[in-house]
Structures are given as C-alpha cells and as structure tokens.
C-alpha cells in the first residue's frame, strides 16, 4: 500500500505488502450518462455547462421546506416505474430509472450482457441514503404504529435497494454491491469494479451512483450548519455552505480492447483522513494520499493533468483544504467545482462528476466554476471561472466524504480514430 511498511506476523510468516500502488491496466468507459438538475442525459449537461446555466432553485421540497437552494430533477413525481417493477417504487429508484433511460444506456448494457453473459457483468453502485425517503414517509404515515400497507416492502428499506433494483431492470447477474461511504460512494465504485475486472471475476461492470432529495439530508446538513441560504458558491471567499442536489449517473467499464477509442479509466486512489467524522484533515492529508494513489495507478505525474473536477462543496473547510492540492498541478491545469450547477449530489456526486470529467475530455470543454464571484486567491490561478475550450487528454475527479473518506479518479482520452 501507498507509503506503508506493513508487517503482519502470522506464525513465523512475515507478510509485507508492496509499498506503492502499482500501475493498472486502463479500462474503457464504453458508455456513460447523467441526469441531474441540469436535465436528462449528457447533452443537456454539456449545453448547461457551456452556457453557464445552473440548475439550482429555491427549495420547495418537503412539507416544511428549509430556506435554501436545491438541485432538483424535474418530473420524478410524475414518472412512476413500469408496473413490473412496482415493488421497487420510491423516489430514488424513479430517479435511477430516469437516469438509466438516457444516452442509449439500455442498449449498451444489453450489449455487454449479450456479449459476455449476464453473470460476467458486475454491478457496483454508490449511494448515501438510497431510498430512505420512503422510510421517512412511512414514519410520517404510521398506521397503528406500523408502516402503512403500501410501504411494507422490506426491499426498499435498505441501502441496497438501488443496486437490487438496477440488477432487476438490467438483468445483470454478476457480483452486485452497494458502496455507501457518504459523498465518496460513487467514486469508489470505479475502483471496486476495476479490481473485479483485473482479477477476472467479471468482464464488464456497470458502475454509478444515485441519491435523491430527502428530509434526512436537508435537515441533517442544516443541523450541521453546512447548508447555505443562497445557491452554493464553491471557492468564493464568501462561501457559506452547500446546496443539496440529486442525481443519477452511470458508466459502463470494459477492457480496452473492447473499444480502444473510448475514453479510459486510467487510475483510482482511495484513502482515509483518520481525523474527524465531519471535518477534513486541515492539511488535506487524506486528499493528497488519494491523489498520490490515483496518479501512481495511472502511471502519470500531476503535470499531465489537464482538468480537475474538484469536490468543491462550498463549505469553508472543504474548499480551503482542497485548494491545498492545487499547487501540485502546473497552472495550465484547469480546475472547477460543478456543484454550483447541480448542487452537492452526495452519494451520486462521484459518478456524476466522473461523467463531467469524461465529457470535458470528449468535448474539449472545461466546465466553469459557477457561483464564484470573489475567488479565493489560493485557488484562483487554477480556477476556470468561465467555460474554456481546449484539448483535454487527462481529467481527474476528487470526492471526499464524511468519516474522512477520500477517492480520486483519473480519466484519459482513448486512442485517436
């Protein structure tokens, strides 16, 4: 492991792992999609980023809306699941369903299932709160102390409801796992899937993340005094908290020979702060370690990175600490947080922002750091405040979660046609 010198004594056998992450074989990202407050599918996202049109709006969610802004996906309430999936119905799975219908994902998934066989495709999804909105709803509508009859569905009162639903819809029959490490959840799914493919336990993987608005996160982050009354302002000197959003984002991973021209997952890094449950390490120790780990696996130095999609939550602490990573990159490297567009989509943020990194490569467009009027000087040399057109060969995405849980992903352009 990175920087470690671990020794374990088992009887007389001394086991000492390697000290640095090894370079990995890249994987092809053969499909990806995103649905958020910016709209359904990647085209809506590319247009919104290029036109600096954010998706945050005044909060009208829940029975007692807090005075804040949210990134809400239009139309979830109207679109019930098809009857054959009715037992999975809840806001989070409706959002997952919406997200899965975009950008040709159903055909792409059906293609890998047909090509490799359903049991050779893995499913690894991230979520922070999954379908807890339905559990909250059940508590609001208790029937003589019991859940109301329509919500007596054990399969939606678990954090695995998302992945179980997606497995049911797609027919993916390989290993299926939910990763739930708060706001790094759906970045870590790329790492987990890559390991399964590297070991030959799967030939392809559908990865992604879905998190939806619910009272738990709105009132919970509010109780932690981390929610801004205004649309969030990442890396602004006056930033005062997050705006919560919801999103569904997915990517399909295969070996590079399946599609040499597709963009690639080049590396991933994971680390822990070992510091505090809800505050990052002041020097960004864990964030640096995740970056080191990701670059080592990618086999590149930081000077190769063209674009960094920052975690950039717009809390005082996160952005202050994350800015300390930026001097590791040359100033030609552009960086931005996209949370001013979508809000912080929590367990979906890792996958959503991985898609932003992939779109930056595909379209040669740096997303602007929306909502930042008075940039923090320490971040300014790298911050893209306006959309910028330039070739992007390597793009990186940071995700940091509660519990000091960090992940960093590196993506790169595929072979040129």
């Amino acid at each position, binding site marked *: 492991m990175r920087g470690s010198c671990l020794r374990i004594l088992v009887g007389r056998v001394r086991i000492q792992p390697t000290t640095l992450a090894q370079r990995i074989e890249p994987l092809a990202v053969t499909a990806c999609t995103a649905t958020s407050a910016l709209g359904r599918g990647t085209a809506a996202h590319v247009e919104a980023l290029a036109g600096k049109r954010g998706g945050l709006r005044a909060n009208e969610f829940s029975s007692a809306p807090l005075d804040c802004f949210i990134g809400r996906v239009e139309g979830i309430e109207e679109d019930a699941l098809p009857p054959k999936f009715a037992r999975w119905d809840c806001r989070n799975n409706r959002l997952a369903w919406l997200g899965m219908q975009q950008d040709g994902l159903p055909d792409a998934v059906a293609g890998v299932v047909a090509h490799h066989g359903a049991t050779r495709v893995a499913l690894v999804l991230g979520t922070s709160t999954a379908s807890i909105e339905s559990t909250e709803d059940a508590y609001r509508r208790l029937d003589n102390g019991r859940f109301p009859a329509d919500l*007596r569905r054990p399969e939606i009162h678990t954090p695995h409801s998302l992945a179980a639903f997606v497995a049911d819809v797609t027919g993916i029959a390989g290993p299926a796992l939910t990763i739930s490490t708060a706001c790094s959840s759906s970045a870590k799914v790329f790492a987990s899937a890559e390991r399964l493919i590297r070991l030959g336990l799967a030939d392809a993987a559908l990865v992604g993340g879905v998190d939806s608005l619910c009272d738990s996160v709105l009132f919970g982050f509010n109780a932690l005094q981390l929610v801004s009354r205004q649309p969030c302002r990442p890396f602004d000197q006056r930033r005062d908290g997050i705006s919560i959003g919801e999103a569904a984002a997915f990517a399909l991973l295969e070996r590079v020979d399946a599609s040499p021209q597709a963009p690639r997952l080049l590396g991933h890094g994971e680390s822990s702060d070992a510091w505090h449950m809800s505050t990052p390490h002041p020097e960004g120790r864990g964030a640096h370690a995740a970056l080191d780990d990701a670059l080592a696996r990618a086999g590149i130095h930081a000077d190769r990175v063209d674009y960094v999609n920052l975690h950039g939550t717009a809390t005082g602490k996160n952005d202050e600490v994350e800015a300390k990573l930026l001097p590791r990159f040359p100033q030609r490297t552009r960086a931005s947080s996209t949370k001013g567009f979508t809000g912080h989509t929590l367990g979906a943020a890792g996958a959503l922002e991985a898609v932003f990194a992939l779109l930056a490569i595909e379209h040669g467009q740096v997303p602007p750091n929306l909502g930042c009027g008075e940039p923090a000087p320490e971040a300014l040399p790298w911050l893209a405040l306006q959309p910028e057109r330039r070739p992007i060969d390597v793009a990186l995405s940071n995700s940091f979660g509660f519990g000091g849980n960090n992940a960093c992903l590196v993506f790169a352009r595929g072979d040129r046609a």
Partner: protein
Amino acid sequence: MSDALQVGVAGVGAWMDGAPDWSSLREVLRGNGGLVDNAPAKPAADMLPAAERRRAPDGVRLAVEVARQACAMANADPANLPCIFASTYGELAITDYVCETLARAPHELSPTRFHNSVLNAPAGYWTIAAGCTAASSAVTAHHRSFAAGLLEASAYACAEDTPVLFASCDVASTGPLAEMTRTALAFGMAMVLTPAPVGGPRLRISLRPGAGDEHAAVTLALRAVARDNPANAHALALLDALAGRGKTGLVLSVSAGMSMDMEITP
C-alpha cells in the same frame, strides 16, 4: 471462468450478547460451552477514546470491537491496514431516531446523530481511532451483505496484494422499522485477510452462476443469531468451519444470479 481467490485468515474477532470475543464464540460453536449469562451487554470498544465511546452508536462500538480483536490476533498494525465494513442496515437505532424526529419535529434533528447515521460511520470512527490512513469502505448487499462484502475484501487483498481488515456487523432494530428489517440481535465479526496464504487458516473463493445454500446449520445455542441477524447467518457458517466444526465447503449467494464457492481450511 475466473481464477479462484485465496486469502489467509490471520485474525478473527467476534461479538454477540453472551460471547464477547472469538475464543468464547468458538467454544460455543464447538459445543464446549454455552453463552455467558453475565457477559457485557455492550461491546467494550476500548480503542475509542472515552469521549468518542460515549457518543459512538451501537454499530460503531460493535465494529470497532471486532476489528480490534481481529487485528490483535493477527498482530497487525491497523494504521496501514485497508478496511472494509459490511452491514445490511448500518445504525438501525439511529435510522429509527432520524425518521421519527423528521416526522415529528424535523428542526430538532441532532447533527451528531445525523453524521453518525451514514453507513460508513464504523469505518470513520475506526480509521480515526486506529490512525488508519489506508483506504476504508462501507458496503452493503441486503441479506447478502456478508458474502458480497467478503468477496469485495478478498478481491481487494488479492488485487492490491495487501492484508485487509474485513468486518460484518449489524445491530438490533428499534421502532416501526423493525418489522421491515427483522434484525433483533446484534452480531459482529471481523477477519484480517492476507493475500497468497502459505499455511494457516485460509479461504479459497471462486464464483459460479446460481443460487447459494440456505442458512447452514449451526449449533442450537446460536440458531437465534441465524434467525434474528439474517445477514450474518452466513458469517456464522464460516466461523463454524473456522472453529473446526462446520462444513468446510460453503456456497454463498453474492447477488441474485451469482454464488461464491468457498473452501475453508480451518
């Protein structure tokens, strides 16, 4: 199909009401003794600083306790040990509290209990207490959480060529949610898994299509665990084999379409 994964079991930890560590649970599994009546009602979790221990929810105390036991038995330094914590439901009592509070008085939600409600609370507290800066994860797969989590941990150990700490814990459910979760009894276990084992207790894991075994039979004294902590019935079956008593071949479902064949060398 794919090659098998082989991992060594360098350390084991366990906790349940009446069997507060692996050696006492192992004796129960072997039929050499029953559950202890006057065992501590809560996991000691003395790795947590006193102030943290008071604030820590039940699932955190359980996970920290079994993780510490496994590391101690393996003589492993947890500071550099990647860790993967599996749980079907996470902090069930906190979920009950959060949902009840939101229904009644949402503005009264406690910030500490909110951040303790995340599924990675045990990983967070553990990494802080152990000074662990390696990768940490929190995974779940409903009633397949143990097997799917063990697969994830074994894959990590083999792919990254490093020892890994794996824990599987669920606490008792409270309130109206309990009818949905059917988890009435706290149970936790942990293992330090090592890649490329040479001798000692070990697991050989391979995947195959199809459904897994139903709950493996365990000694009468522990049937309540298999019934009232369904996610860990499979954990108990593995521990039964490691205790030298149960079947050394298990087939555990890791998804709706896939099972994990596990050969256990105690």
